[in-house]
Structure formats: structure tokens, C-alpha cells
């Protein structure tokens, strides 16, 4: 359950007012990664602990970026990613997929399109969640 989504993923992408060419260029700039380094071996997806919740597997996200396909940016994968770095340590090409995911999140977050809000948490949730969880979540999902 996401707390702040009032628009669809496609509408959110449209709010960026960027072509997919521009998006991919920005992803590579922010992440320092070349999306064409990936040769689709799937090791990242095989090791990712949260794949079951993702619309697209990590390697499919990278492939979509290679193809400049919008699905890379409308899939929920980047928001489910926990930055655990299992993908990066196993990638045979040394692609830092965690940085690619972060870059994709930042493209939205730097346009103030947050994916979690304090209003979306109940008092009970705020009381029971440890500070480390709230701070980490808001660092990753707000701009």
C-alpha cells in the first residue's frame, strides 16, 4: 500500500514532461551507469529478495531502459527496491543496479513527486515504527 499515490503511474510519468530519451540520459548521469552494460543474464532478478512484489523484474527494468520503454518508469519496481545491493554484488558486468533504481526514484522525487508522506501514516504507525525505519523510508521516497 502506498500512501501518497493519487495519480496513476502513467499520469505521474507524464508530469515529468521528459521524453524517454531524456529520462534514460538522466538515469545514466545520476547513476554513473551505462544501461547497455547489461546483457540480460538475470542474476540480479534471481537474487533480488523483493521480486515477487515487483511489476517488472530488475533485469526487465534495465531492458526497458535500454529500449527507452516507458514501462521502466511506470513499473513499481523502483519503489519496492530496498537498496539491499544483492543485485550489484552478483552482476557479472558490475552494473550497479541499485544506483540505477535510485536514479529513477530521484527523477520523480526531484520534481516533488513523493511516494510516502507523513500524513499517510497513522499515529499508531508513527508510534510503533522505529526512527531508523521512518527516516530511511522518507530518505528513499521523498524529495
Amino acid at each position, binding site marked *: 500500500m502506498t500512501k501518497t499515490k493519487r495519480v496513476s503511474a502513467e499520469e505521474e510519468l507524464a508530469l515529468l514532461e521528459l521524453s524517454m530519451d531524456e529520462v534514460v540520459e538522466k538515469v545514466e548521469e*545520476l547513476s554513473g551507469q551505462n544501461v547497455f552494460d547489461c546483457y540480460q543474464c538475470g542474476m540480479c532478478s534471481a537474487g533480488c529478495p523483493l521480486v515477487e512484489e515487483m511489476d517488472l523484474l530488475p533485469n526487465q527494468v534495465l531492458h526497458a531502459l535500454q529500449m527507452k520503454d516507458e514501462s521502466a518508469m511506470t513499473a513499481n519496481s523502483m519503489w519496492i527496491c530496498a537498496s539491499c545491493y544483492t543485485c550489484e554484488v552478483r552482476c557479472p558486468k558490475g552494473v550497479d543496479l541499485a544506483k540505477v533504481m535510485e536514479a529513477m526514484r530521484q527523477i520523480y522525487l526531484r520534481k516533488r513527486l513523493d511516494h510516502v508522506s507523513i500524513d499517510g501514516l497513522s499515529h499508531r504507525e508513527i508510534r510503533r515504527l522505529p526512527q531508523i525505519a521512518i527516516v*530511511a523510508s522518507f530518505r528513499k521516497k521523498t524529495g
Partner: protein
Amino acid sequence: MKDTAKDFEISGMAVMEALGYELVELERWNCCGTVFSLTEDDLMHQVGPVRDLIRAQEEGSDEIITLCSMCYATLKRSSLFVNGDQERLDKLNAFMNKEVDYEGKVSVYHLLEILRDRIGWEKVEERMTNPLTGLSVAPFYGCTLLRPAEIAIDDPDSPTILAEMISALWATPVDYPFAVECCGAYQVVDHRDIVIERTHRILAAAGREGADVVVTACPLCHYNLNDIQRELARLIPDYEKIPIIYFTQLLALAFGVDTGRIPASLKAKLKRLQTVKGEG
């Protein structure tokens, strides 16, 4: 460390004192930010962690030791991020114009590295007064001690550091397939169901291999594995909770020093083991 994870600090300080070392808290410190910012252009989120490195520098120390593995990863990655690039360091120092310049000389260590590499497991074993014989302990490493490679304190796929610690205390390390898996981390805030599933998978695997207790080095892993079990107990009939403690609490139990709060179920297990030993 001062609130929800205070048992980690209490036991950590007690264990190091028992080993003859004093951990000196920085007089001033700030939150490291919990996570390391992963974009190439972001210097703003390095301010928090680098200020902590400046605090250490000001106190004349070239080292910071952390208990929390998330702090370890964030502080260490930040130090590597700025040390590797003079332009970044200059920009950051210029921005933090009310601070002394960070000179780039503070190293970051996790307590487990200090125990393994400087103190040694032999000394840990010698200090032990209550051997934990018969206790099956499952190590849960989580992510940030082992990944990415630039900060890993052990092999990311087959680490042994916690198993070595557990063996030094005469307990039995449990080998199970989820020891290095992610607990779901911050997804617990708005995707609690994901963490419920993760916790169930991790602890079911540990339980199948006979774990009496799981040890962790991260307050977020601790919350996810421990507190989420309450939800599992509601969802699964006859669910048996596995106690989750910090690795410093296991050491404190073996040393007979302040452990902070320990789950009642673990105290009961330890008492049963003592009774068995007494009979034997």
C-alpha cells in the same frame, strides 16, 4: 541507540568494558542519515555523515567504530565517496563553512571487525564465564555489513564472522539459506506486508534448522524480525516466536555482563540448558 535500540548500546558497552576496552562516545554527533545517497551528484546528503567524521577528527581520533550496521555502511561509504575525489571534498568543506575542514583521514569500522581483527575470538573465548553450550544460534547478517564489496566486512555470499563469534561462545552456529538476505528494511513503513512475508521466510528457515535464537547487528533488521513476529502470531495458528537479539547481547550473556532486555523465551531456554548441564 538511546531509545528503541538501547539494549544494543547497553550490551555493546558492557562487553567491550569486559574485554578491557573503553568505547568513547563522540561528545557531539548527529544522525548519519540512515542510508547512503546513491546519486553521483548528491553532496547534500553527505553533510550528515561527514560531520560525524569531523567530530571524530576534532576529538583527535582517526577512527569511528559503530554498532549499527546501517551507520557503518553510511559513514564508511560517505568517507570513501569524499576521500576519492578532492573536488567533492573541497565543495563539501566550502559548503560547511562553519565547520573545520574535513581532512579525509577518519576510518570507519564495525564492532564485529574490531572483535575479529584486533581483539580476536580467542580473547573473547577466554573472557567468557557462561559458555552457551547447547544453544543453537542463527546469524542474520542483513545487507549493510556485506554489500557493496567496497565496505564488506566478510564474503557477501558466504560470510563466517558471526558463526566464528557464536562458536567462540561454545554455542552452535546454525547454517540456513536466508542468513544474508534482506529483511525488507524501510519497506516496513509503507509495505508492511512485504516485511511480514520476508520475516516469515527468514525465520521459518532458521527454525527448520533448529535455531533457538537469531542474532543481528542492525536495529532495523531487529525490528523487522522481532516486532513483525507479532503479526505472524496473529496470522498463523500455533506460531512459535523465535527470540531475536543483538550480537552484543549474546556476548554479554556469555560474559555475564549487562545484556539489556532479553526476551523471556530466551531466558527460559538458557535456564533449561543450565539445568541439563547441571544434571550432566
